């Protein structure tokens, strides 16, 4: 019974955190649209958002230019928009910003060389954590009666 309450609490916390995250990203940095827009405009806006959310705002701490309300981020978003409208591909737009600000401007580093550490470490930590949980659960439950590991602790 106690365990069930624990699970319920965990689910509520996770749901709360997720909802907060969704709320944050949906309210910040979305331009107010006053004029009627065509379907092509909406597609371009969506492509602009997709690229802008991968570029780091240079005057913020860990925000993308899509999420930042700063003036520089606004100017950068309009530049992304104009470059996409002029026929550049998302990769070409990102390459433009990298050529000006260095790879630093990409929120997710390219997966090569030393950057791989940023990708590997979280996975290793999750794997390690999973192992710890499995071992602990075994120790707390059936494992105690069968192999007596729990007795050593």
């Amino acid at each position, binding site marked *: 019974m106690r365990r069930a309450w624990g699970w319920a609490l965990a689910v509520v916390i996770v749901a709360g955190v997720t909802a907060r995250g969704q709320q944050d990203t949906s309210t910040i940095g979305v331009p107010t649209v006053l004029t009627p827009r065509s379907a092509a405009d909406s597609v371009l806006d969506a492509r602009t958002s997709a690229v802008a959310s991968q570029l780091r705002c240079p005057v913020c701490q860990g925000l993308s230019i899509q999420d930042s309300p700063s003036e*520089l981020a606004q100017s950068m978003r309009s*530049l992304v928009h104009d470059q996409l409208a002029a026929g550049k591909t998302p990769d070409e737009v990102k390459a433009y910003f990298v050529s000006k600000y260095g790879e630093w401007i990409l929120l997710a580093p390219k997966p090569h060389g030393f950057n791989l550490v940023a990708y590997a470490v979280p996975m290793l930590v999750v794997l390690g954590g999973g192992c710890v949980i499995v071992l602990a659960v075994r120790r707390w439950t059936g494992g105690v009666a069968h192999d007596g590991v729990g007795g050593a602790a």
Partner: protein
Amino acid sequence: MNWRRAGLAALFAVPVIGLFMYGLKQDPREIPSPLPGKPAPLFSLAVFAPGQPPLNRPIGDTVRLADLRGQVVVLNFWASWCMACRDEHMSLSEVAREYAGKRVTFLGSLYQDVSSAGTQWIAQMGGQSYPSVQDPLARTAIDYGVYGVPETYFISVDGRIAHKITGPADPNLVRQVVDSLLAAANIAP
């Protein structure tokens, strides 16, 4: 058993502590620019603040970087709302005057600001010897990888970005860089 546990804990803790120590030594606001050594992005921008004789240019005149080939160009991004820009203003204005008549062009570029505020600021600061241009939508600033003002770029006579100063420019460093660029081009400073 305790030694094993301690060893295991150290195995995880030491790299993490090492990473944090490395992170503490870095300045998160210092973004290394990939631009020095590369061709300076071309621009053509309109003058809003004329500067003073003999360095002045008429308001509305278009300054094109392409026309400045063969000269050392000192391009300073500034704004009226920028406190650090006040620190460098007078000395930069003076250094620009020292190079009057030489193959050196000083140019201010207004960043994320309106020209009326810029003009007012120059008047409050006691004038500016060299002209300043407007940069609509900060397109030129983004082209130069500007992320905060003041930032000063030195463009060599062959149109390459030779050096960049982030923050208020020290007048002696400005003289030193300009002189070295003139010397590299075999022009007497």
